[in-house]
C-alpha cells in the first residue's frame, strides 16, 4: 500500500533525524559571508552551519563540510553577526490602564505607614505572566538585528522580575531563554501614597531591604530552633525580596540621571547587592564613581537629557542641542574611559529609533567593534548567558544576523535573521525604492475635535523615505510617535499617551494635502477628528 509505505518513511525519518523532534529542526549553511563576532577573530570568508536551533559548526569556507540536508545560503559580500541582545526593554507589556493606577498590595508596611497603605512594590511579579508578544514589534526588532530582548516590568519601585526572550515568534513559552533574570528597581515615586518624593523612595528602598533581610534572618533562626520564638508572619513581599539581599541574586537598577547612578551605587554598597545599573545616559559624568564601583552597566541609547540636567534647565533649544550633540557621545566617552557596558533601547519608542541612535552613537565616536560587543557578548556576560549566547560559536544558540554590509552603516540592510535556528527573511523596506512623494517633516499645529470639545497640540515630524518619526506635545506632556508611515497621501502613526500614570494608545490616520492634514484618531472606546496645519519655519 502506498499509504503504508509513506507511514514507514515518516517513521524512519522521525527516528533517524532528531531534528524532526524540534520545531526549529532545519539545517542551514551560510556560506562565503564575512563573520564578525567579537572577541573572536574576524573570518573573511566563512561558513556557519546551523542545525536544530544551534550553531553546529563555524569556520573558513572550504574547511567546513556542508551537510547534505542543509539549505545553502549564499552570502557573498554580506556580513554575519551574532544576534543583538537588547538587555533592557519594556516590550510586550499590556497592562490595562485601570489596573496600573492601583498597584497591587504587596505588604511592606513602610516605616510608620498604616497597613492599609498600598506600597508601589511587587518584587514577586514575574513579568513573563504579563507579556503579550506581537509579531509586528518582533519584526521591527529583527529588522535592526535584535534577536534577544530582556523584558522588564516598568511600574513601581520594586517593579518585578524580568525575562530574557528570543524573538522567535509570538509564544512566550517558546521564547523564554532565562526566567527570571533579575529584580528591577527604579527611583520612581508613588502618586498619592507613600513614598511620593525622591527622598521617600530612597528611604523606602533601604527599609525594604532591611526588612527583607530581617525577615529571612527571623525565618532561619525559627527554622533552626522554633521553640520559644514566635514564628515570622508570612509576607510575600519579604519572601520575594529576601534572595536579592541575602543570596545576592541580580538586581537591575534603572538610573535616569547622574544622581540616580550615585544613589544606586550607595544602596548597592550598603546592602552588598549584585547590582546592574541601567539607563545611565549621563554615565560619562560619573565615570570615576562607576569605575570605582565596578558595576555592570546597561546604557540606554536614549539621548534625551534628563530633567535634572543643566541642559534641560536652559530651555528647549539648548536641550535639543544637547540631545543631538552631547548625549550621543555618552557611550563613546565611557568606552574611552575604559568602562565596560552593554547598549539597550530602554526609553526609546521603537526599534527604528534604536537603530538611528545606535548609528548616532557610532558617529559620535564609539568604535564599531565596541558597539558590536556592547550588543552581543557584553550583554550576554552581564545577564549570565554567555555560555550559550553572545557569539557565533559551535554549540551556542543560533541567533545570527546577516546584513548586506556594515550593520552600523545606515545604507546597510539586515537581509536574514536566524533566531533559535529559525530563519526570518526581512522584507525590503519600502523606503529603499525612493522617497515618498509627500513630505510631512516640520512643525504642525494639531487641533483635535471630539465630543468633549477641542484640544490643541503641537506636532513635530521628521521623515525618512516613507518612515515618519517625531513627537506631539500638549499641555499634558510630550509623547513620541511610533509606527509612523506615509503611504501615498495617507499618514498614520500611533501615540502612546501617558497622563497621570495611565497610558493609552492613540492611532492617528489622516490624508496629507501639502500644508494640511485631516483625519481621525482612534482611542479605546472612541474616536475624534483632527486637523493639522503647518507652522511656518521662520516667524
Amino acid at each position: 500500500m502506498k499509504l503504508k509505505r509513506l507511514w514507514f518513511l515518516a517513521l524512519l525519518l522521525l527516528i533517524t533525524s532528531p531534528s524532526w523532534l524540534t520545531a526549529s529542526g532545519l539545517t542551514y549553511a551560510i556560506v562565503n559571508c564575512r563573520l564578525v563576532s567579537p572577541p573572536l577573530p574576524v573570518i573573511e570568508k566563512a561558513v556557519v552551519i546551523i542545525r536544530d536551533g544551534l550553531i553546529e559548526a563555524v569556520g573558513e569556507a572550504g574547511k567546513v563540510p556542508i551537510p547534505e540536508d542543509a539549505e545553502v545560503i549564499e552570502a557573498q559580500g554580506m556580513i554575519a553577526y551574532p544576534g543583538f541582545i537588547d538587555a533592557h526593554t519594556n516590550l510586550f507589556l499590556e497592562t490595562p490602564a485601570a489596573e496600573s493606577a492601583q498597584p497591587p498590595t504587596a505588604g511592606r508596611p513602610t516605616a510608620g505607614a498604616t497597613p492599609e497603605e498600598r506600597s508601589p512594590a511587587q518584587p514577586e511579579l514575574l513579568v513573563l505572566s504579563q507579556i503579550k508578544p506581537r509579531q509586528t514589534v518582533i519584526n521591527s526588532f529583527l529588522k535592526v538585528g535584535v534577536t534577544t530582548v530582556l523584558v522588564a516590568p516598568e511600574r513601581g519601585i520594586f517593579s518585578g522580575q524580568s525575562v530574557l526572550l528570543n524573538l522567535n515568534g509570538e509564544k512566550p513559552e517558546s521564547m523564554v531563554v532565562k526566567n527570571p533574570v533579575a529584580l528591577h528597581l527604579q527611583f520612581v515615586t508613588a502618586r498619592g501614597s507613600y513614598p511620593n518624593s525622591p527622598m521617600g523612595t530612597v528611604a523606602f528602598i533601604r527599609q525594604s531591604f532591611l526588612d527583607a533581610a530581617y525577615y529571612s534572618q527571623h525565618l532561619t533562626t525559627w527554622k533552626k530552633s522554633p521553640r520559644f520564638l514566635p514564628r515570622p508572619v508570612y509576607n510575600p513581599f519579604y519572601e520575594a525580596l529576601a534572595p536579592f539581599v541575602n543570596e545576592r541574586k541580580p538586581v537591575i537598577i534603572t538610573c535616569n540621571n547622574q544622581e540616580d547612578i550615585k544613589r544606586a551605587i550607595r544602596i548597592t554598597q550598603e546592602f552588598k547587592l549584585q547590582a546592574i545599573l541601567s539607563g545611565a545616559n549621563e554615565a560619562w559624568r560619573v565615570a570615576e564613581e562607576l569605575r570605582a564601583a565596578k558595576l555592570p552597566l546597561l546604557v540606554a541609547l536614549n539621548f534625551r537629557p534628563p530633567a535634572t540636567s543643566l541642559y534641560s534647565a536652559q530651555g528647549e533649544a539648548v536641550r535639543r542641542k544637547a540631545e543631538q550633540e552631547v548625549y550621543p557621545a555618552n557611550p563613546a566617552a565611557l568606552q574611552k574611559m575604559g568602562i565596560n557596558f552593554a547598549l539597550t533601547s530602554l526609553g526609546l519608542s521603537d526599534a527604528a529609533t534604536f537603530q538611528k541612535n545606535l548609528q548616532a552613537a557610532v558617529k559620535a565616536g564609539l568604535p564599531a567593534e565596541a558597539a558590536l560587543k556592547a550588543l552581543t557578548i557584553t550583554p550576554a556576560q552581564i545577564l549570565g548567558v554567555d555560555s550559550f549566547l553572545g557569539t557565533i560559536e559551535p554549540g551556542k544558540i543560533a541567533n545570527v544576523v546577516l546584513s548586506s554590509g556594515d550593520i552600523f552603516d545606515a545604507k546597510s540592510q539586515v537581509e536574514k535573521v536566524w533566531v533559535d535556528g529559525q530563519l526570518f527573511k526581512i522584507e525590503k523596506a519600502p523606503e529603499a525604492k525612493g522617497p515618498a512623494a509627500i513630505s510631512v517633516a516640520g512643525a504642525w499645529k494639531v487641533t483635535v475635535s471630539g465630543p468633549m470639545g477641542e484640544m490643541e497640540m503641537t506636532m513635530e515630524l521628521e521623515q525618512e523615505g516613507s518612515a515618519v518619526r517625531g513627537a506631539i506635545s500638549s499641555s499634558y506632556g510630550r509623547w513620541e510617535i511610533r509606527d509612523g508611515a506615509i503611504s501615498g497621501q495617507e499618514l498614520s502613526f500611533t501615540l502612546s499617551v501617558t497622563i497621570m500614570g495611565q497610558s493609552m494608545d492613540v492611532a492617528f490616520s489622516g490624508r496629507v494635502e501639502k500644508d494640511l492634514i485631516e483625519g481621525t484618531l482612534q482611542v479605546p472606546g472612541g474616536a475624534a477628528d483632527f486637523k493639522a496645519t503647518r507652522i511656518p519655519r521662520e516667524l
Partner: protein
Amino acid sequence: MKKTIILSLCLFLVAVGPILAGGNLLLKNGTILTVTKGTIPKGDILILDGFIRQIGENITAPAGVKVIDVSGKYIIPGIIDSHTHIALSGTNETGNAITAEVNMRDVLHAEDTSIFTAISGGVTTIHTLHGSANPIGGQNITLKLKWGKKAEEMIFAQAWPTLKFALGENVTQANRTVAGGEERRYPASRMGVVAIIRRELQRAREYIAQWDRYNEWQRLKILNRPLLPPCKDLQLEALADLLRGKLVARCHSYRSDETIEFIQLSHEFGFRVACFEHIPEAYKIAKELAAEKIGISVFMDSWAYKVEAAEGIATMPAYCAQQGVLVSINSDSNERIRRLFNDAAKAIKYGGLSEDEALKLITLNPAIQLGVDKWVGSLEVGKHGDVAVFNEHPLSAYTRCDLTIIEGDIYFDREAYLKERQEAQKVNPKPKLSGGGQ
C-alpha cells in the same frame, strides 16, 4: 572633526566645571568687614589652601598666588542661609505625617540653577531642608555652594545633622481644600500635632530600650532560647538619634504658644532644638528663647500671608536680637536667596541694629545655628576662605555682589560671567523658535 572638538569640549566643561584658582588667593585693598573683629578700611586677605591665613594691610602674595585688586570694594564673610530648599530634587514627602527616615542627603541636585542664583548674591553656605508638610519631616543637610562641583563635594561635613519638625497650619493642612469624600490627614488640629510628635518620640524611647535590652541579653548570655535583635527601623533610628543627641531639631513654627509647647516637649524627652523657623511671633517669647539658647531663623519682612502669620511685625528680628536671641535671616526661596544682604540692612532701619549686628544675621548667627561658626561666619584667620566681595557697602541699597569665593576658589565672578555670556552669544546666537509662536 570640528564637531568632535566642540563635543569633547562640552564633555570636558561638564565634567570639570568652572576653572578653579586652586584655593590660593590674595584680595587686596578692599574694605574688610570682619563682622567679629571690626572693619579694616583698606586691607588685604590672604587665603591659602582654602583657609584664611592672614588679614591686614600690605600683605604680599607668596609666589604663584593669584592677586585680585578689590580697591573701592567691600569684603564680607560669605553669606549663610540657615533655611532654604534649593539644590534638592524634592521638598516634601507627604505620603505620611511622620517621615523622619527620609534624608535630603539622598536627593542632592548639584545642577539646580538656584545655586547659581544664590552665589550671585554672595551666599556660600546653605542649610537645605525638608519642607514643612509633616509634624516630623526629614533629615536636612548643610552645603557649600560650589557651583559646578559634584553634590558630594558640596557637603559641609562638620555641620550638625538636623531633623525637621513642623507645627501649625502647614501640617494640619489647614489651608488645603479637601475634596468631597476625601478624609483629612491626621493630625488635623494643634493638639493632634503635639500628640503625634509625643507618640513618635515615645516609640523612639521604646526602640532604644528594645536595643538596650537586646544588647544586655546578648552580653550576659543568660538566655537559653533563640534571641533575635529588634528590626532596624530607619524612622525610629533617626528619632532615637535625636534623643541620643546625635541630631538636633529644627522646628517650623509660627505661633508663640505652639513654640512654647514644643520647647516643653524637648524638655520632656531631652532633645536639643537648634532653631525655630519663620516664627513671626518670636517677639512675644524672646526672653524664653534667649534663656533656652534656641535660635530663630526668620523672614525679614514677610508676614500676614496666612492666619498664623497675622501678628508678624517689622521690628521682630532686630528686637529679638537685642533681647539676646540668636537671630538669622533666611530666604526660604530660590529668588530671595540672592538678596539676603538687603534683608539684613532692613534690620537697621526697622529696629536699629548696628551694621555688625545686621551683618551677623546673615553670617555669624546662621553659622552658629548650624554648628559651623568655628569655620565660617566671620573673617578670621584660621576660618575657611569663604568671602563675598560687593561693589558698594553690602548694606547699601545700591550694592551688588561681584565676587563669591568659597575656600579660596572663585565660584562667581560677575565681570567674567558677563564677558563669557557675551562671547557665547556671539558664537551661538539665541536660536530662533521653530514653531509654537512667540
